[in-house]
């Protein structure tokens, strides 16, 4: 049996594209037939759940019952990967809670694979967040995500300051999410479907849709570039995707 993987996607600032990144991760694992579940901490109304309703549950990560729902089921659930989309402002408290419940100890012992996708904002405050969260992620795979999808420009980052912060994180890896054509992004939002479903021209029920071929092309090209970044960091190797993709649930999903 492969060990479970938990991927936390978060930032301490809102509007930096956490849910967009979570969506690309879910699409990536779907494409690789890796059984995945997701938790959306934007309680009570989750954006991630709107796009991936079948695999997503809305939770309050600060409440004990919901923490049990996520972490007590890691070994029992068929899903190999758990993606947690952490609401703005809750990244540090969530990591603290993970330490308090002994989750980080299990990571240290090698019982669980843990990855953090820290979505960076444009301001210097983002760099301060890195310092704060880094103390919890010594045994995790730590990814710093520069997300250009919603036109962020990292204008406030002085190169020397940037380098000084990054030096403190010897194992952190940077990921760049490229910009997506605005109209294409908006149409996927309106369609309320995963990016992959939009590319396949399907509606939320799985029936044929009538999305623009041009916009689908833009999304396909963009998603390909995002996934190239995930391939570059060997995300599948990190979570042991090959073993997971051979599991019974993955095989059933692949057949369907």
């Amino acid at each position: 049996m492969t060990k479970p993987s938990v991927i936390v996607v978060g930032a301490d600032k809102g509007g930096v594209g956490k849910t967009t990144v979570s969506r690309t991760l879910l699409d990536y694992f779907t494409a690789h037939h890796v059984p995945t579940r997701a938790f959306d901490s934007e309680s009570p109304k989750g954006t991630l759940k709107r796009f991936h309703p079948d695999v997503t549950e809305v939770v309050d990560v600060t409440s004990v019952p919901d923490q049990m729902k996520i972490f007590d089921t890691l070994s029992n659930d068929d899903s190999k990967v758990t993606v947690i989309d952490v609401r703005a402002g809750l990244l540090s408290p969530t990591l603290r809670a993970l330490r308090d419940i002994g989750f980080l100890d299990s990571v240290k012992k090698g019982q669980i694979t843990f990855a953090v996708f820290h979505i960076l904002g444009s301001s210097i405050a983002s760099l301060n967040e890195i310092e704060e969260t880094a103390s919890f992620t010594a045994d995790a795979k730590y990814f710093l995500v520069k997300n250009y999808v919603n036109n962020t420009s990292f204008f406030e980052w002085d190169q020397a300051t940037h380098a000084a912060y990054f030096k403190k994180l010897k194992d952190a890896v940077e990921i760049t999410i490229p910009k997506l054509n605005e109209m294409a992004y908006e149409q996927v939002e309106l369609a309320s479907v995963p990016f992959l479903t939009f590319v396949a021209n399907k509606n939320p029920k799985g029936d044929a849709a009538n999305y623009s071929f041009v916009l689908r092309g833009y999304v396909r090209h963009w998603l390909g570039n995002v996934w190239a970044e995930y391939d570059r960091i060997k995300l599948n190797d990190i979570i042991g995707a090959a073993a997971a993709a051979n599991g019974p649930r993955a095989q059933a999903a692949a057949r369907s």
Partner: protein
Amino acid sequence: MAQPTPIYIAASPRPRVGKTVLARLLVEFLRSGGRPVGAYDLNPREPVLAGYFPQLVSPIDIADTHGQMVLFDQLIARRPVTRVVDVGYGAYDQFFGVMAEIGFVREARRRMMEPVVLFAADRAAATVRAYADLRRCLPDITVVPVHNEFVSVTCDKDDFPPTRTACRMIRIPRLSQLVRGVIDRPSFSFAAYLEATPGTPTEIHGWVAGIFNEFRELELRLLMGTLGASLSRGGGDW
């Protein structure tokens, strides 16, 4: 066996090299054969092609995403229409850039359409470079170089190697200056002239008939290519 419907794209990265004349000739050639035609003029500032065929040609500005959607979504629509696109030099980079990014050629073939670029060749180094770049950027697309002798007297064929061995360079012969003025008139129709003018063939007769023959040969070569590929693969894919 069903044949792919061509999407003809008259293009060059340089202005005033005869793209619109080429597109006009194509539209008239197709119409003279009784084929339904849909054409697009990507010269938003000066839609000359649209001026010749106002009922048939849609002027489109592809500088923004909306215009790109209007053009490419219509080009890919499953309708029994042969499309002709006049790509103005200002839209050249954008057109082929979007085409490559959205995977247009692959989708067109999936829908039994075949994009064919008629590339207006000339001696300028920029044109030679653009031709090589186009082949690199869209390696699967059929590109047919067109040498318009009115634009440049000579043209080095080695600079414009065909993408398929069978698709050789199309030559548009030079017309005398006087006759050139006649064909540039907004009301002038090549096909109507061929049919309607009685008596001894004129310079224009020979010129138009020769070019239409080149187009016929091109279509035949494309068809032979399809058949050949189909036979070697044992299927009907272009």
